[in-house]
């Protein structure tokens, strides 16, 4: 066992050697598969300068390995554009893709927040392509579908999402969208987010970011009222997270111009360039928009995290420090003090039951990192974690960006060339101010990644397979496993609770202060449930036969 590895104790107090675990995990794999997976399974080690070992990420999934990952379309239509209530999102393709992404991500929205009250989220729109369109082309049907959507629903905007066959048969959704935009006089735009693009949902996020940036951001120069005007990026309002964050901002006197894209309206995107700061929640899915807005409009961005009460407090302080306004700083401190009271009380309540329990998180592109905050607030330890579709910078921090090799799959995803907008570019901070903020540790335009914040010796696994999941569970017997719906019941058959961190198991919110309290209670319920104790029937405990003779009674 390597000397730097801190042994992790399992329930029988045996020391688990992660080096051996890794060996055991890949020994069954065919040679080439084992070689590839070995680069995606890394034991964490933190160097003197905070550097961590490289991990292979954002690479092709091995066919047949049973992955958690989805596709480009899911990342574009499902994740990024799905939570916006007032765009009619038409899936151009056979019926399945539109059907499966219909209401399944639990994005909540406040439909009455916009004056027009538009809300198309409970609707699924599809061109339902048939064989004829596959053979002769689907543009005509798409055009007609856009017309019908306009005639019936009168939306402000219509977006078109391409599925696999659309790219293959060569339908030009962009020119169709342009034509219909001209004809209808509303914003119509398309996304080439065919499922086969890239290696995971991540490609779809990038394509969605590019599309929104090109077609919507900066189209409305109205500057709204309010101080400390910010955008929140990469927050998708699962289970009402955005509502809680909005509540906190309001209490702090901060003004939210737009959220990309939880509880959002396309109107917010359109004038989001009037904000003075971009806050990034999910670095993976949305950092592209932040970077492009910085280049084009001069808006700096900060990586923040509202998952975890301490993380929320820290993020609020970062925002206040960015504005450097004493009034705001004082107000933020007052809010934190008030909000932390019930949080601390909830922590005191659950910690005797949760401290020392062990969690594993394999999910998303930032959640596997963010949720460690909540677990540590409960005294729980994260013994292994990994992303479903993260890139190396999400693991190792943005400092590795220059060293990431661009492979063929990434090269296929367009990288927009952005220049400062001649009229709208307005640097919100002077370069020396930015340097000062950076020196103060504010992390402007930076993300340190998950690994530097994790313990040494823990296993980091990218794009975990079902086989590796089973092995981890057999060997470590964690107290809770966090992943998604596809993993949930297989893990629970083992008698170990699984918390879904995509859909929150239909609970939440878990963001902010109120969310943290919800999460403590939920995890306490799960890791201390007596249900798992019922698995063995009483007759299995005492299998001996007993009987009595009739004369005894």
């Amino acid at each position, binding site marked *: 066992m390597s000397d730097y590895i801190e042994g992790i104790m399992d329930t029988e107090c045996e020391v688990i050697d992660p080096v051996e675990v890794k060996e055991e995990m890949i020994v069954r*794999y*065919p040679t080439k598969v084992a070689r590839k997976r070995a680069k995606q399974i890394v034991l964490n080690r933190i160097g003197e300068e905070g550097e961590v070992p490289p991990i292979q990420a954002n690479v*092709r*999934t091995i*066919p*047949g390995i*049973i*992955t*958690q*990952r*989805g*596709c*480009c379309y*899911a990342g574009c239509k499902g994740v990024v554009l799905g939570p916006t209530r007032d765009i009619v999102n*038409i899936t151009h*393709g*056979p*019926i*399945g*893709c539109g*059907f*499966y*992404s*219909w209401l399944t991500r639990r994005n909540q929205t406040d439909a009455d927040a916009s004056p027009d009250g*538009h*809300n198309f989220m*409970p*609707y*699924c729109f*599809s*061109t339902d*392509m*048939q*064989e004829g369109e596959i053979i002769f082309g689907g543009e005509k*049907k798409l055009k*007609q579908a856009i*017309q*019908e959507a306009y*005639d*019936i629903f009168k939306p402000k905007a219509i977006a078109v999402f391409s*599925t*696999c*066959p659309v*790219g293959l048969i060569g339908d030009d959704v962009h020119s169709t969208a342009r034509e219909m935009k001209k004809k209808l006089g509303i914003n119509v735009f398309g996304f080439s987010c065919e*499922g086969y*693009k890239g290696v995971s949902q991540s490609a779809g996020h990038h394509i969605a970011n590019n599309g929104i940036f090109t077609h919507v951001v900066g189209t409305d120069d109205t500057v709204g009222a309010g101080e400390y005007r910010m955008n929140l990026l990469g927050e998708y309002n699962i289970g009402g997270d955005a509502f809680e964050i909005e509540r906190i901002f309001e209490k702090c006197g901060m003004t939210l111009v737009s959220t990309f894209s939880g509880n959002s309206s396309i109107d917010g995107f359109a004038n989001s360039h009037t904000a003075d700061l971009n806050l990034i929640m999910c670095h993976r899915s949305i950092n592209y928009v932040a970077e492009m807005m910085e280049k084009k409009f001069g808006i700096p961005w900060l990586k923040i995290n509202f998952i975890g009460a301490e993380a929320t407090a820290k993020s609020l302080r970062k925002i206040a420090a960015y504005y450097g306004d004493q009034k705001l700083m004082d107000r933020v401190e007052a809010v934190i003090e008030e909000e932390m009271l019930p949080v601390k009380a909830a922590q005191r309540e659950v910690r005797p039951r949760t401290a020392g329990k062990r969690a594993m998180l394999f999910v998303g592109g930032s959640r596997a990192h963010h949720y460690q905050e909540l677990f540590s607030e409960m005294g729980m330890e994260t013994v292994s974690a990994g992303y479903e579709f993260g890139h190396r910078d999400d693991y190792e921090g943005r400092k590795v960006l220059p060293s990431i090799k661009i492979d063929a799959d990434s090269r296929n995803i367009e990288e927009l060339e952005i220049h400062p907008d001649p009229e709208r570019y307005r640097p919100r901070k002077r370069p020396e101010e930015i340097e000062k903020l950076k020196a103060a540790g504010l992390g402007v335009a930076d993300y340190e990644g998950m690994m530097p914040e994790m313990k040494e010796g823990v296993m980091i696994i990218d794009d975990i*397979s*079902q*086989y590796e999941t089973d092995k981890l569970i057999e060997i470590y017997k964690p107290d809770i496993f966090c992943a998604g*719906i*596809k993993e*949930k*019941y*297989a*893990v629970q*058959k083992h*008698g170990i609770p699984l918390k879904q961190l995509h859909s929150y198991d239909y609970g939440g919110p878990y963001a902010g202060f109120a969310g943290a309290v919800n999460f403590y209670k939920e995890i306490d319920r799960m890791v201390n449930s007596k249900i*798992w104790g019922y*698995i*063995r029937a009483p007759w299995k405990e005492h299998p001996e036969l007993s009987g009595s003779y009739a004369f005894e009674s």
Partner: protein
Amino acid sequence: MLLRHTTAAVAERSALTVNPAKTCQPIGAMYAALGLNGCLPHSHGSQGCCAYHRSTLTRHYKEPVMAGTSSFTEGASVFGGQANLVQAINNMFTIYEPEVIAVHTTCLSETIGDDLPQIISKARDDGKIPARKFVIHANTPSYVGTHVTGYANMAKAMVDYFAEKNGVRSRAVNIVPGFVEPSDMAEIRRIAGEMGITPILFPDTSNVLNGPLTGKFAMYPEGGVTVSELTRSGSSKATVALGRLAAGPAARAMDVKCKVPCHILDLPVGLKKTDEFVDVLRQLAGVQVPDSLEVERGQLLDVISDMHQYLHGVKVGIVGDPDQLIALTDFLVSVDMIPVHIVTGTPGKKFEKRIREIVKDVPHRVNVSAGGDMFLFHQWVKNEPVDLMIGNTYLKYIARDEDIPLLRYGFPILDRVGHSYFPTVGYRGGIRLLEKILDALLDRKDRDSPESGFELVM
């Protein structure tokens, strides 16, 4: 309002589907493949298809749903998916050790024209398929038919790949259930068992997608038809298909391939359709209908007669798959309920004809659409309200907006349990359906009746 943009005015649409009452073929193929013992389904396409199907099936069953994917990238989409599939087959047999891999295609692999038999034989030639292990396939292009077609195609693939005629007719009877719940498949087997028949039932997802919590995850649960049963099925004396659309093709293929005569029936939902099933089984096996089934039948009839006053004249709107809708409509009509709006997303000319036949004596105009969607259904409901709706979970948005009680029935049910444990087929299933219908109607009556007219006994 949840569906706030839906108005009563029915606009003509020729290109836009809104709120579909169907999904695509591959998910049906994946579900059917899970009804084969020791089988790992495999989706030959982009990995999103597989993720979506596994997620939807998991949400419906709250059980593990394991399946592989060929994980197409742009390169594979251009050069063909052979390398991906051969590699996937090798990986799955090496890592997960299934008995059978059941591959279904997707719109992607169909559009580029991947030749599955050729790829499978390449995998065999390359030594990627271990001895006594199998790879089967079904073509399931998402742009043809629906999830029901996909189920039918995979059930048929089981016949195409495994059924053998050995020259001697056995006394066995094959039963092909349509796209129904694991509980329904178990109930169909039980009914046959009551009659002294041990059927070869395929696909059979009972004990697969309604498994117990044991503290151990079994990649391949105990249930499912075995390869050896399927091999023998070619020598059975007859095949009974339950559900023309979902089960018919497999039964007909068995007839063509192994000359096993097929009897294609409707799903045994409700009194009359269960009678048909039992009567056909009786004749095929040359047995008497046992008293136990007569009692069950009598019990169903008893419930109908006891509660007829609450059923008579109740207007119902139903959305679902053709096989289910035909049998359900027959049941509703048989108890004097009035199916007013009937919508399936699965296109088919025969469907409307059959429904029209069933409702011909119903004293009310009946709206029927094959290839319709829930948006149209909702508009119909707005134009003529109903007392009860029956269909999948997506109907709950309409149910809430229009304040109409909803009975969850069909696929998918994402927000309730029970369907995978308690059948709706057979006489007992009929009692359960009535129980659910009456619960919905009478709960509503209890909620809405004035205090002066509130009833203790109903």
